[in-house]
């Protein structure tokens, strides 16, 4: 997977990195068990501070998207079963972000059909997530 970073963006680099890895897992560009570059290598290739990459990896690890293998390093993993509390927290986050996006779509004159079509199209791009 190619991760692209914009250092001039207002979004912090560690968050851009986290978001792209999550999108990569969702789209199937990063497979379960795939080894991610070491923090130092990722930082060298991107030209960013190693602490920035480390912060993104820590966040991904806390969210369960990657795990650390003593021999392999950081490995992609797809959380299969989540605790009810984690599931509830995610649903709350999803609802919150969807609410904001729906509001913006409504303000800009998008109807329900169009909005659902957009959501469906993006959802179908995610090959790893079972329907």
């Amino acid at each position, binding site marked *: 997977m190619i991760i*692209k970073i914009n250092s001039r963006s207002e979004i912090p680099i560690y968050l851009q990195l986290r978001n792209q890895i999550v999108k990569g897992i969702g789209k199937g560009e*990063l497979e379960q068990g795939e080894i991610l570059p070491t923090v130092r290598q990722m930082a*060298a290739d991107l030209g960013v501070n190693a602490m920035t990459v480390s912060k993104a990896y820590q966040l991904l690890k806390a969210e369960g998207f990657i795990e650390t293998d003593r021999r392999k390093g950081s490995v992609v993993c797809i959380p299969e079963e989540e605790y009810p509390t984690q599931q509830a927290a995610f649903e709350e986050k999803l609802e919150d972000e969807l609410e904001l996006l729906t509001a913006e779509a409504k303000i800009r004159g998008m109807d329900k059909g169009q909005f659902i079509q957009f959501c469906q199209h993006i959802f179908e791009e995610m090959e790893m997530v079972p329907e």
Partner: protein
Amino acid sequence: MIVTIIMILTDWLMVGVTKMVYSCKVAYRQGMLFGVHVPGDAAELPEVKTMIEKYQSWMKAFYRWHFAIGTVICFLGMWYMSIFFIAWTVWMTAFFIGVMGKVWQTHRHMYELKMQKGWYEATSEEEQVTSAVDTKTAARTAQMAVPMICHALPLIVLCGPLVIPGLWHAMAINSESWIIFVCCLLVCGCLLGAALFYDKMGNKIYSEHSDINFQVNCLEKRMTSVGFLASSICNSLAFWPIAGTLLSGKWMDWSWLGLYALFESAAGIVIIVLFFIIRRRKEALLKQDTAPMYIDDDYYWRNGWYSNPDDRRLFIQDRYSSMNYTVNLGRTAGKVITGITYGLLIVMMAGFCLWLLKIDFTPVRMQMTDTTVTVTSGYSNISFDRDEIEEVQLLDALPDDNFYKVNGSADGKQYLGKFKGKEAGKCQMYVTLDVTPILEIKMPEYTVFINSQEEGKAEKWYQELKQ
């Protein structure tokens, strides 16, 4: 004469390599023209065509003139070495300022045209990409270069002759062999450092396909590390003829020296050959690519050099020559390194010019008291007791001996400094070659040969020493 030939060849090599590196910028390569990312059909635009034609004709005339001037200047070395070196320094500075100035100027014009035409203008923040990483390539970086432990091999090759019986003893007597050994060791260290530097460099993205990115980065890192290792082995092997010359008792014999020069030349040739192999194979790999990917960081290169304060990297792959690395001037450390490098270079060149002037134009003088004799010159001074003198004589010419320089100057006009003769042994020379007579002062440890351009001076010294 030898120095003149070496310098002519050096100048030709310098002009040739520079021409080869910067002439290809007129061709559309890796999505770039004059180091600026532009669409493939941009080269067909009339303004770009004019730009290319102007660049080519200017460069052609520039290289032609500098090829001629660089050659002519070298003949000054047959007159005065200091005058030659000053003229050569001025020529070399003008040559590089001219080439880089033209490259940067054309690059800037191309960048301005790109801005004017709105090529690759990002419409959203997501489209603006300043850096990228290929996770599959980056995760396999460790497999790319030759393991650093392999650099123990040149060290073993270099130290190998030291186990030969008698070599330690021969080296203990001959201090120059130690200097050569330490120099070989330092070159091995530098090549190891260069290999480490290339190994730690980040990978570059060329394509949307991970396979292509891996193959190109692997090719560059593996071949470069092999090149440094092979060069280091050749450099270590160069010490073997030195050991041979020591053991055979024929120090500085031409056959052994030839072998030494052969191995040292091979150390450099290996790297140059690998550079061309890498370039050819890289181009072949990139031609197969169906989805090339270019990271448009032209903004940071707009002045001709890289300046990006957001980029943590200090050394960046050069846009004009992929084998070369440049400093990120957006970082304070980059500015400091560049300032110190250029500062040191200017000071060293100026110092060397002054030193050569001193050697060429300071007259040799001899001052005598009742007990001591002091010789002063533009290179070194010596002082000895009159009691130490075993024999003094005036010679019509230098003895028919094979003198070789240990330090100082031997430019075909004068012998100045420490020399060694096969029969005369250790000597201190203060001799202008076309001036006679020459005063020979024999002492237990060394012999002094001295004359003066001032008529009758050597005879006067002879008389004074005889008293």
